[in-house]
């Protein structure tokens, strides 16, 4: 069954120089227990799309449905993880994790155990009373993750969650996110990841949606069936990244000057 349905969504902004079209005619669905990644060059509206899906922003045209109901306000069954972590420096780790629960109006006595649980599954034990500024980037993003998971969302939205981290920490966090998502006892049914890093998308996701340059439209939807953990150096992996990469480079050019798909540069690199 489809969890989220995105139908012919356009988004444009009025600016001093006329309207700027961010994306055009984007349609896809997110199924239960999907791990979906959206990749594309910068400025293709990936992050905007994420915000449209949660209802933080309205599409200029088209509809977005969550569980067959149109999204017309901020959907509390989804939770967002931010590139910049977006932690409140004046709240402790526990208070940051409790943030969403408070917004949902949970009673105090239920918030405590829930926070403890998600602090623990994300490996934050011992940091409950710490303030974000005391934490390293990796631990901060774990707080962001715990905060999002604590509200037990149906969909976890991740906006470039690993790109502010050092490579090793990012590697670790990617694996942990997978682990959490695969744990049937833990909330998110589906994960929607926005990334500019094609390797990252293919390493994590079941399906990768490839967006073109602005105005963003869907170039392709790529299924990834490689077994996990995925070896980035394997031939199959390499082939997939290459395909996505050449899709994007080709999609960015006008058709008249279509480039040779062969040797379209190294695959898998961040765009």
């Amino acid at each position: 069954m489809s969890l989220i349905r995105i139908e012919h969504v356009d988004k444009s902004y009025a600016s001093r120089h006329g309207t700027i079209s961010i994306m055009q005619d984007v349609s896809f669905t997110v199924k239960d227990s999907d791990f979906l990644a959206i990749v594309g060059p910068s400025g293709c509206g990936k992050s905007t799309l994420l915000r449209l899906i949660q209802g933080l922003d309205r599409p200029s045209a088209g509809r977005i449905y969550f569980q067959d109901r149109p999204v017309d306000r901020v959907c509390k069954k989804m939770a967002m993880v931010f590139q910049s972590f977006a932690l409140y420096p004046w709240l402790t780790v526990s208070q940051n994790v409790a943030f969403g629960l408070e917004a949902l109006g949970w009673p105090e006595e239920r918030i405590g155990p829930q926070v403890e649980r998600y602090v623990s599954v994300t490996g934050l034990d011992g940091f409950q009373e710490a303030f974000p500024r005391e934490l390293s980037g990796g631990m901060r993003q774990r707080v962001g993750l715990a905060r999002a998971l604590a509200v037990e969302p149906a969909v976890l939205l991740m906006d470039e969650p690993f790109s502010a981290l050092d490579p090793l920490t990012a590697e670790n966090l990617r694996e942990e996110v997978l682990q959490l998502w695969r744990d049937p006892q833990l909330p998110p049914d589906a994960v929607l990841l926005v990334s500019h890093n094609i390797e990252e998308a293919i390493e994590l996701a079941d399906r990768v949606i490839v967006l073109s340059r602005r105005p963003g439209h869907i170039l392709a939807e790529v299924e990834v069936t490689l077994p996990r953990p995925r070896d980035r150096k394997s031939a199959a992996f390499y082939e997939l990244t290459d395909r996505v990469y050449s899709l994007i480079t080709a999609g960015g050019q006008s058709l008249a000057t279509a480039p040779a798909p062969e040797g379209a540069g190294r695959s898998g690199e961040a765009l």
Partner: protein
Amino acid sequence: MAKDEGTRPVVPAHLPNCSRGSALAGRPGPPAGCRKLLRWPSARWAAGIYVAVPLIFGGSLAATTGLSLGGLAGYLPQASLDTAYSFLRMLAAYALSLGFSLAYGYYAATHRSGERVMIPILDILQSVPILGFFPFALLFFADATPGSWIGPNFASVFLIFTSMAWNMVFGVYESLKTLPADLKEAADTFGLGGSLRFRRVLFPATVNRLVYNSVLSWTAGWFFLVEAEIFSTGRSPLPGIGSYLSLAASQHHGEEFLAGLVVLVTLIAFLDFAVWRPLGHWAERFRYDQAPAGEGGELTPTRDTSGRFRRAASYVTRGVRTGVTRIRTPLVQLAAIGGRSGRRPSERRRSLTYYATLGAILVVGWLLLIAIVVGVFDALTGPISGPVRHLIFEVPTAMGVSVVRVVVAYLLCLAIALPLAIQFARSRRASRLGLPVIEVVASFPATALFPVIVFELIPYLSAEGAAVLMLMTGMMWYLFFNVLSGIRSLPPDLEEAARSYGLTGRRFLRRVLLPGIFPALVTGSITAFGGGWNTLIVAEYLSVGGGGTGQSLSVLGIGQLIDIATELGQPGNPLMAVALLTLVATVIAINELIWKPLYRRAVTQYRYD
């Protein structure tokens, strides 16, 4: 927005005392562990200063006039009572300011339409010498409640409020405006709204600035409180420490005067140690402007509360900066329209027409206003009496003299502040020992000493000298703390480069240091001039004590005319109106024509990033 202006914060992100020494400091800073060690001696040192300064002062006074401790003690109860009155006024004004700044700042930051009107208004209010309106407010409130204690109290609370509120409003407004977008968005994604949003996100975001700005607000508040009370002695006396001090001074009661000082200093020291220092420490956690890009995170948030003055000064400065860069006052907009020509002329010519137009508009507007005021009074209350009319004609001269006086005081302040700040930035030792002294001295309202200046120093300094001295007390600190911060935030490599090329001495000063601190110098100057205008009212005309024992200081100036108008009462109204309008117009003109262009140049030309 402070960030995206491309200007550096006036105070470096990490207070530089220990962790990050500027290269101007002779050697690299000691490791983090010493922070703690530094903190306490500096606090103890500060406490010592609180005791030492009045003791030395009192001692020298006692030596000359022959005082006794017993006599002094006898006056303590009365002094305490009067200080308590003053303190209550301060509390009332602070509560008002806090409520006002939260409401006003919050509304301006969250409603675009409100912002467009509210922030320019605020900018004008903060640059206008509010104290000039005090005589007017005093008359107004006194007339509203004749013979009652309410009127003068209202007037003085109102005055203190005006000295406290603006920078706090700017603090609230800016902290909400500069709150990182992702923090707001995170609150959106979790659907956090209403009072919870205010409690968890918006209010905490303002706490840091509010606390630091409050420190400065209280300092300014004491200054104005004492000033207001001194001013009102002999008119509608306000029981309080200011009137107590001025009465004591007028009767040459050294013991009585000292008792007052002791109580006032004790109270200020108590507030500093029991309220502001702990509060400043606590407020550290509410900072969001310097989340360190953490690989190990920041285990050691700054605990150096003794930097709070510099921080506060920088925050206030940022308020000024907002005023300068974000806000186009209607006047400037008007001039911009006037200066616009069909084709795009060269930059220089454009700015020439621009300034010519602006100047013309100002002069014409000012003359028109005076004419209107005179006309209105003529029409409404009958012809203006001869002497008043004569005084009105003196207004332009008086204004000119006042401007010169403020400039002289400013230059003197600069001559002291610049070398001092350089010395402090260069030597860790000097700054460790000297800064607490300066902070303590700066937090003491210099106005409390004005009666002494009038009674004891005029013979030595002449009236003119005393006036300038008083002006300096109102301007000094803004300049000093800003310059110091400017020097400290100078990138060490700039200085190193200069040294490696052998640039030293005066050339170093001219080529590196002064350009480097230029933005800080300009903002410091703007605030210092603001302080100067406010001090004018008492610096140019101070009548202390009543009856035969009273003595007064009176030098020609716009402040003097405003005071004379107050003393004249009803017939003086036209003079008051004209003088006030002139003062306000001049201040705005100087801000718009000198400081703001200079500041824009400072941030475009002299920034380093």
